[in-house]
């Protein structure tokens, strides 16, 4: 037990002496949080658009002004004819051209119907969609005001939408759990796998193996400092989320930390598993990157919803621990769920963790070659 304590002390010292890495380790969650919270959004802010007004009357000018007045758009150019569109799009800054048909006002007054053509640069389909729907909102508002002024009765089917759990549709509410998962994968899995393979590569593993330490002592000693770091990171993200971004937290903190602890175990087990399967740091890093981080970012539902993926990828997503963790944490934070609602996901995570621990204990070799 004494030698084990000594080993753990050595590990802690080694990590906490490396100031540069520590700064990154603690600074990263903060910076990522700020980036996600402020910069990564799916709303539009000042998209550059062009106007092709073939009618040049009072109504088209009013609509143009309304577009200009909305924070989402910046009217950059006024075109004279269709041929200019191609060149503008190619330069890449203009995302949308709004075309008013000739005789717009007249048609609206006489026939009650007029047409606006919206040409979007759809190389980015998501952006094209957004720009289009923002434009149609502006136009719809205008038409409503017009009809109200004319005292025409507005009738018909009116959708009344209620957004549950996240009424303002804030992306940051969604990103926080994902961010926790990514950071835990990074700190727990990547760093652990590197630190164990490092001992192998430097030849220190021999020394550790001939010492009175048991193999599981070595693993636990290696893993412990990163566990502490992970917990600190989780707390940092949570504090930032609560006090800077005002992300709601409906559920129980105790339950949240228990689940996070479980996920930290999963990530650590994965890290140990990778390190037992690779011989040098470079391999361990690339495997953790390609096998853990990218799937965690892309297949877990962090940024892109799992339900939108093709079926084979949805199946693959089942074996990604972060997917289950995300469901659990989102439910705890936004819906206030308890174990009753997420016991299935918790069970999956638990089984995965035990499986990986078993596998890596089996693969961990007591002698080298």
């Amino acid at each position, binding site marked *: 037990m004494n030698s084990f304590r000594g080993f753990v002390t050595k590990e802690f010292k080694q990590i906490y002496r490396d100031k540069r890495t520590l700064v990154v380790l603690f600074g990263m969650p903060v910076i990522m949080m700020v*980036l996600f919270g402020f910069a990564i959004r799916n709303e539009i802010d000042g998209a550059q658009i062009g106007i092709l007004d073939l009618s040049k009357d009072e109504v088209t000018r009013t609509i143009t002004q309304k577009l200009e007045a909305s924070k989402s758009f910046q009217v950059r150019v006024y075109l004279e004819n269709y041929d200019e569109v191609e060149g503008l799009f190619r330069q890449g800054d203009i995302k949308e051209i709004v075309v008013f048909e000739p005789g717009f006002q007249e048609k609206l007054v006489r026939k009650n119907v007029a047409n606006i053509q919206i040409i979007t640069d759809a190389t980015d389909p*998501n952006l094209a969609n957004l720009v*289009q729907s923002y434009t149609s909102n502006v136009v719809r508002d205008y038409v409503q005001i017009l009809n109200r002024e004319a005292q025409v009765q*507005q009738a018909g089917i009116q959708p009344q939408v*209620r957004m549950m759990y996240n009424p303002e549709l804030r*992306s940051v*509410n969604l990103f926080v759990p994902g961010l926790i998962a990514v950071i835990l994968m990074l700190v727990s899995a990547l760093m652990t796998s590197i630190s164990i393979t490092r001992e192998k590569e430097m030849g220190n593993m021999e020394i550790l193996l001939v010492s009175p330490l048991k193999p599981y002592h070595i693993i636990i000693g290696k893993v412990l400092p990163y566990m502490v770091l992970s917990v600190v990171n989780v707390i940092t993200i949570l504090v930032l989320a609560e006090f800077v971004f005002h992300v709601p937290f409906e559920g129980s903190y105790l339950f949240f930390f228990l689940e996070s602890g479980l996920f930290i175990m999963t990530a650590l087990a994965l890290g140990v598993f990778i390190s037992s399967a690779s011989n040098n740091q*470079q391999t361990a890093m690339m495997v953790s990157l390609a096998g853990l981080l990218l799937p965690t970012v892309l297949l877990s539902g962090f940024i892109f919803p799992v339900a939108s*993926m093709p079926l084979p990828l949805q199946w693959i997503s089942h074996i990604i621990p972060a997917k289950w963790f995300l469901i659990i944490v989102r439910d705890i934070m936004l819906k206030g769920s308890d174990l009753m609602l997420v016991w299935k996901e918790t069970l999956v995570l638990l089984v995965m963790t035990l499986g990986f621990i078993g596998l890596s204990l089996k693969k961990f070799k007591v002698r080298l070659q």
Partner: protein
Amino acid sequence: MRIIRFLLRKEFLQIFRNKAMLPILFVMPVIQLLVLSFAATYELKEVDFALLDMDQSRVSRELAAKFQSTGYFNLQAETFDRNKAMEWLDARRVSLIIIVPPDFEEDLTNGREAPVQLIIDAVDGSTAGLIQSYSASILNDLNAEKQLELKIKSADPAVVQVKTINLIPQNWYNPDLDYITFMVPGILVVLVSMIGLFLSGMNIVREQEIGTIEQLNVTPIRKYQFMVGKLLPFWIIGMFDLLVGLALARYGFHIPFLGNLATILVVAGIFLVVIQSLGLLISTMTNTQQQAMFIAWFIMVVFILLGGLFTPIESMPGWAQNITLANPVAYFIKIMRMVLLKGAGWQEIQVMVYTLIGMGSVLLMVSINRYKKTTG
């Protein structure tokens, strides 16, 4: 020249001897391209919904049928108990509840307002937004149909005089709003940058950590020769991976190649130098592979997030948009998309290319300067 050749041979031998690295260098990028391209989509698929039809009328049934027939919505369960439906929403069994109030049909036919309640699980904001806009357009269509029927039946002047402005959307370059076409060029950039940034930087730190750098330092190899020897192998591998990726994009994903392929390759060559110089700079500032890896990964994440790959740069607030001006990945992603998807030529991209060249020269000079042939 001879020295560089020897150095290159040494590096390539080392790379190809490491059997664990080979699949990572050549197979992993292909798998990633395939997986990521299909995964990175916001398209809506099969939303399960619950229906509370209090009206049980012809129109309300028509409404439910209309939702189902779009293929985006799937009626999971029907109930008259609102609490039950909310429980389903809690348990993630459904993501949308449609509530049709009693007297829905009567209100509609009498020219009154006929509300339909949509309760959406908005944990995932962007999906919720899509569900909302899809259902709104379904309801709009239904409404237009019904209003037309009414118009024909009644001669109420108020109904006739409602003004409408039709919006006719036209999506250029990608008329079907296909996400894969958009993502593949960007993902290629990320794969290439990962190879450039992680591997070349790591390589020098590795020699430092193991101690073999001393052996190189005492040879008559000049600084620049050493650098070329370190950079060139991964430059070649990066370009090779890019070519494979482009071939896959062209023949596997049928991405339109409107622009000139040579332009892409030239820009890619410059871009790789920029990224590799950055990797080199990181390696001169760190002592262990762990440190280098960590910093490189961190920078990579920032580059990707602020590169316009997943979320449009246009959605970022002004200050974040300004940061992207210093992001080489953002430039290359933009150039790739412009050239491949829109057929942009040299004229449209030259400013960005010059910026990349500028970044590359500065980074390369700084990192060569920082590299010292002494240790300690």
